[in-house]
């Protein structure tokens, strides 16, 4: 859906999406890294289970919710990636209290 421009010279950052290593760049938000990676990052909604991807990328739509390093319901579009960060795509109601 998206590709990186060649002029982007930012250093690479490795994150893990559902356990799989994914290449990101320093300064990417989690949502941008997911969309750039080509992995299936669709979450499913808590109400009907419908698939969603980020819609606004500016912190208002909450369609980018992901679990980041074990903390659920984070807005992926507001969180920068960090080396070794572990992302889980949320399916349905977030499971609390694991």
């Amino acid at each position, binding site marked *: *859906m*998206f*590709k*990186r*421009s*060649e*002029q*982007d*010279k*930012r250093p690479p950052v490795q994150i893990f999406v559902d356990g799989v290593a994914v290449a990101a*760049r320093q*300064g*990417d*938000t989690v949502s*941008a*890294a997911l*969309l*750039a990676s080509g992995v299936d990052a*669709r979450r499913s*909604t808590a*109400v*009907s289970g*419908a*698939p*969603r*991807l*980020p*819609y*606004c*990328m*500016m*912190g*208002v*739509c*909450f*369609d980018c*919710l992901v679990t980041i390093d074990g*903390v659920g*319901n984070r807005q992926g*579009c*507001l*969180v*920068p990636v960090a080396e070794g960060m572990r992302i889980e795509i949320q399916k349905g109601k977030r499971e609390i209290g694991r």
Partner: protein
Amino acid sequence: MSVAPKREDYDVVVIGAGPAGLAAAATSAEAGLATLLLDENIGPGGQVFRAISSTPVTDRNQLGTDYWVGADLVQALRAGNAEVIHRATVWSLDRNLDIAVSIGGASAFVKAKRVILATGALERPFPIPGWTLPGVMTAGAAQTMLKSSALVPDGRTVIAGQGPLLWLLAAQILRLGGRIDRILDTTERGNYVAALPHAFAFLTSPYFTKGLSMMREVKAKVQVVSGITELAASGDGQLASVSYVAGGKRETIPADLLLLHQGVVPNVNLAMAAGVEHRWDDLQLCWSPVLDASGSSSVAGIAIAGDGAGIGGANAAVVRGRIAARAAVEALTPAAAAKLPAMATLRSDLAKAERGRVFLDTLFRPAPQFRIPAGDTIVCRCEEVTAKDVLDSVAIGATGPNQLKAYRRTGMGPCQGRLCGLTVTELMAQARGKTPQEIGYYRLRAPVKPITLAELAAVPKSEDDVKAVVRG
């Protein structure tokens, strides 16, 4: 990395580091006031100057000169003593000017003598069939990725809607080597006539020549279809095609990405939750705060600057930020106001920056069918409530958005009505034959962004409550 505010009390707390917030915080700090700037994003700039300090797009022509103005604002802020905290989400503000802010998973409380809200705008909801499908995003979302990560569309891409940002985005995508298959212009034909009386002001505004050359640049490379009267996205779990009607003729094209945009509207959640009075703006078709000439709201001590005060664009936002900050300085330390630009100068700057706005608002007034959906089209994305659901509730007695919540939970999801509120107001107004002002809006409450129970539990408690627990 995340640091809590250094103090519990500030003279001025500015919320939002877009053009208005950057200018307000710099002005306030320059006058010697203890100033805190809280911003939710990773770096300064807000939406229009997003990633201004970090963008990987190094060729300055690609993002355009209007973008790089933001660098000067950041420099001016950094030259002063304002305390700046990014990735700081303000989740509560009340009429006592008590502010709750979440930073790095922990909440802190600060108190201000003056608050300047510079929470900016968000893109108007564009509730067409299929707008919740993966692959449908806002144009602003694509622009955010372009500015902050140099990402551009490379699949089959359709841009639909209207307004200056749409053309700017298209130009930027093309300059960075991205792909656009088609642009679907939803501007109503009648708007051109309606906007004509305001055209003179626009012709003499800075928007005019830039806008025209950008449209020319885009139209040279992309097929543009104008006069779109219907628009829908479809696909099974993922966008597959976009269909539209233009000139009475329906066409369906395959697509991987649909970028929607029909203007921006004030981001009112924090201001409304603080009790600031808002009114329906019939021209801009949104809620705008009731403000005096200095940006002061109905809540003593809270001023609003930038697009949150009513859409005026980045140049106006900067000036509004300076005006609000100057008013705060005049109130708190009048002597220091002397070294700031005179209010009269600022007001004339503002008039200049706002020139041509009425023309744009009239020309790009979104068509009713793209604001007020019907049938199975989703209105509330969080709770997955359709237009039909809303109308059914009206039929059994829901009279306004707040009553509707009891029937359908619209606006009660995490986005707190940001993506459905305007649609619900207009839909109910139409169904009940009332004005949007009469129908009203959701009563918004903190937290304006969700916080975890654990984070709230860790907040320092008041003495009375500690005692109450001991007593129990």
